[in-house]
């Protein structure tokens, strides 16, 4: 199965705290693909909030979203858009 990847910088003010993490996880859960969030060499499951929050991504952190599965490409697009849009924060 092809793995799709996208690098992106967390741009919202407080980084991946509660609210953005909720959005990220809820969006990820809309897809069947296996989705990982990678920071440096740490990889966590994007469908679990404590995974996402404990990855500790303050503003300016470069992360990679990796998805594998039938709807992986769409998942990457949706998640990258969410991050790029600063989770709708401003």
């Amino acid at each position, binding site marked *: 199965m092809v793995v799709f990847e996208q690098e992106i910088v967390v741009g919202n*003010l407080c980084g991946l*705290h*509660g*609210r953005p993490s909720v959005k990220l996880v809820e969006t990820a859960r809309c897809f069947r693909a296996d989705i990982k969030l990678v920071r440096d060499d740490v990889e966590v499951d994007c469908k679990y909030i*404590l*995974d996402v929050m404990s990855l500790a991504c303050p*503003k*300016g952190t470069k992360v990679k979203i990796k998805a594998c599965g039938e709807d992986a490409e769409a998942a990457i697009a949706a998640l990258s858009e969410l991050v790029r849009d600063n989770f709708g924060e401003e």
Partner: protein
Amino acid sequence: MSSRESISIFGVSASPGIVIGPVLFLGRRRFRRPDHRCLDVSEVGVEVERFQGVVDRVEEQLREIRQQFISSLDGYASIIDSHLLMLRDRMLYDRTIAIIEQEKKDAEWALDIALNEAREIFSQIDDPYLRERVHDVEQVAERVFRLLAGRTEDKFAAIDKKVIIAARDFAPEDILRMRNDQVLGFFTEKGGETSHTAIVARTLGIPAVVGAEEAVRQVVDGETVVLDGISGRIILSPSREQLDQYYEHQRQYRQYSEQVALYAHLSPETPDGLKVRVEANIEMVEEAIQAISYGAGGIGLFRSEYHYLGRSKLPDEGLLFEVYRNILTAISPFAVTIRTLDIGGDKLPAGDKGGEANPALGLRAIRLSLRDPLMFKTQLRALLRASVYGNLRIMFPMIASMGEVLAVKGYLAEVMAELAGQKIPFNEQVPIGIMIEVPGAVSIADVLAKEVDFFSIGTNDLIQYALAIDRGNENVAHMYEPFHPAVLRMIRQVVEAGHEAGIEVGMCGEMAGDMSCLPVLLGLGLDQLSMNSMAIPYVKRMIRHSIAEEAEQLAASIFRCASSREVYDLLGEYLPRHYPDEFGPGGIRTLRKSGGLRTVADNKQGMDRARIL
């Protein structure tokens, strides 16, 4: 009542009102079982099911709470969303089940292990803000612990009589639940006057005292306590005399505050036609609506520090613009006076953490802004861009010299030219003012007045600098005297200099909201008083019950006093005579000779001092 001696403890007044009743301590962490329980193989399945059942109920509970959020608090709705996800997160949920099955131990013990593992992971996070999210995980686990221990899902639903609640801290949703329950009031160990807990309490009108650590520690369930949300006082096991006194106090306060609230929206004008603008000091946009409902005629001081503190980076222009635009539109058409950054450099993310030997006399407020033009101009740009969305006034803190005023105006002109070049709209006529809080500025107030549109006297710092008193230093705190003749003369000098130049002179220090000071300030001719919202209805009522001419005479006679003691003596006679409801026998205020005056506005001091020192 109990046999032990009565204990009187002061916390921070968070929401006004007086209540008397039995206290109930709603503690956290008392549900945790100290030991584990070993299970038979046959019991493991049942234990897992028990855990799952409890989690199901917690989930229902959270969903129910989420639905109750009123729109103005929907920031909390997303907190609940994150709690819902955490509840089912594999780190807590799956992990707990796995531990129960592997170790054959009870659910409490297993969840405790899982929680500690999560704590361990979070403790390694560098970013302090993200690291502290572990408290959310703990809150979620706490709910599960509580139900596992067989406690009722809803601690407030279990309350079957009217009680005063004591707790370490509340989650905001806890306070929302109190509304429908028999909660007379509450006090907590943690929190300050601007904590969300305090703001929600005020919104709901539940008398509350926060930051009363000692009171919470010493509380005995079921004992009668007196909670005085006006002065921030808690009395544990009050004496018969104290109870009688407070029942009477409560009755008078109720009567008086009904009347005060009813008339909060009347104009702050004396019967003989002297008008004073009464405005609010606030720090967060959420407080603005509250301020207006208390009868504020505008925001006389919007502290802009919040968005600079506790972050890893300085706020960007976009964020500041949003905040300023929100406050301006929320309050429009009333004026909002936004003060530029007023903190010491050591508090900034990029600041010097080495510290200064004497920070009160160091690089702070406007000095810091002028030292870091990029940061300063970012704030000015955000302010000017927001200026078209309402009635903005910009105020600069801690001005000590003409050079600083000119430098500030230079940057302002520079930013205006940039914005004009980029065709970004702004109000070219935005009024600019300075805080008068350094004695040197008082001396040259006449020349400074020619350069600005308004003055606002910051009495907290002015008194501190004029009398060389650090109010946080208990050896000298008693010498911090708002009624020191030197202070009064300085105020007079500033008012006269401002009026001579035809500009408005206001006051935004604690003294402005102090009911004992009000007649003197009226007599001195201040145009605007800006204070803690809670003090507004009271101050407005006093203004409506004042006679301008009498206040002027009072001010004149005050200036014949050689010491603050003489001023107190004079006021001790004047206030009860002119304001019997406030200062008469059994009135809601008393004039205290030692340690200064205490009013509803008094509690801001802790925060201001923290900022100053």
